[in-house]
């Protein structure tokens, strides 16, 4: 259960207590790519946060006082220090439940 939840378009960010053990740091700060438009949900300030992957889950560790989540179309969201899990909206179809494709 998350305690602070944000929605940035089809990307959801929810605070969690800590990074999972063994989470692997990622090279960039892109939370999600738009498949069609090429737009990106990303952290604007380099050095303010790090992304981690644990299995199929993505985590964001905001290390600065704040980090700004930006996108070409959506208004920015300022995230305070903390650890967050990142996931995408899902969508139903009779065949399968799938993440929303942006």
């Amino acid at each position: 259960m998350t305690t602070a939840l944000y929605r940035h378009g089809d990307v959801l960010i929810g605070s969690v207590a800590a990074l999972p053990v063994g989470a692997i740091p990622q090279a960039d700060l892109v939370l999600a790519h738009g498949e069609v438009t090429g737009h990106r949900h990303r952290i604007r300030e380099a050095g303010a946060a790090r992304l981690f992957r644990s299995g199929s889950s993505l985590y964001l560790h905001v290390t600065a006082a704040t980090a700004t989540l930006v996108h070409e179309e959506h208004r920015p969201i300022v995230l305070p220090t903390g650890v967050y899990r990142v996931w995408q909206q899902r969508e139903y179809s009779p065949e399968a439940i799938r993440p929303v494709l942006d």
Partner: protein
Amino acid sequence: MFRINARGRQPARPAPAATPLPATPPPAALPARVTINALGQLTVEQLPSVAVPLKVSPDQVRALLLNGPLPDALIVTGPVRLRGEKRLRELPRSLDCTHLDVRDCPNLELLPEHLRAVSVRASGTAVREVEGDWLVREHLDLSNNSHLRRLPARLTTRSLDVSNCAQLRTLPASLHLTHWLEVAGSGLTSLPAGLRVPLRWQGTTVDERTAFRPDELRAVDLLHVRNVTHRRVLIERMGLERFLQELGGLVLDRDRDAGGERQLLSVPLPDDEPLHALRVRCPSTNHQYVLRVPPHIRTCRRAAAWLAGFDHEADYQPLLET
């Protein structure tokens, strides 16, 4: 034919900076077109003389184009960057450069008749007609030219953006385009015969029916399109009202979130489970989306929570949605 933007109607264009013709040239030295009319009479039409191009560096080009005198033919050994320049009214008749950026030059009316460039960004100008021969090796952006009616008869480029050129009704028959054509909000209703190129609408690849014949789109087909961005374009092209009208479903619930009113729609489908979808509006872009949810869901709140990954609506209480 009367042409609003024909160069011949412009007040005197400054004389070419380069070598003018001798005072009394031999007649054969002038370029001319010889034709025979229906009565068998010979006519000789003198063609405009071609000046020797002036060659300048990118550092010099701004002062030259803004302060003049404007050369008839210009070669720039690099990019021409004049974005947002209100003083710019015309470009040389012939221009050769790497990148040409004249975006948001609100008084720019005359583009070159002969252009060679790697890329051209010329959106948001006052251009009405472009004539002649253009070769742009990469991208040509002519979007948001609300008065643009005509493109060069000979035009070759990799990709072309004519979005929001509402007055542009046709493309040149000999247009050569290899990668894509962006047409959202243009006046185009078809492609020239023989032109086969991927079409885009607001950056999304669409077919000719979506771009030019949206009245043929059907709502149920659209809901089966998986990509929500693609589906949004299809719904916008079809028209949301018709889309919802065609669904013929029930509004099971309605409430409000950060984007305004949202509705939970239920559409019975023959030989299938009912289709339940939440119609929402993005609070940032104001675009509307229709997102399918499981058929057991009966409220908007429950549907929004399910889309966000929660099975219980009490668990989905975002602090901020943008």
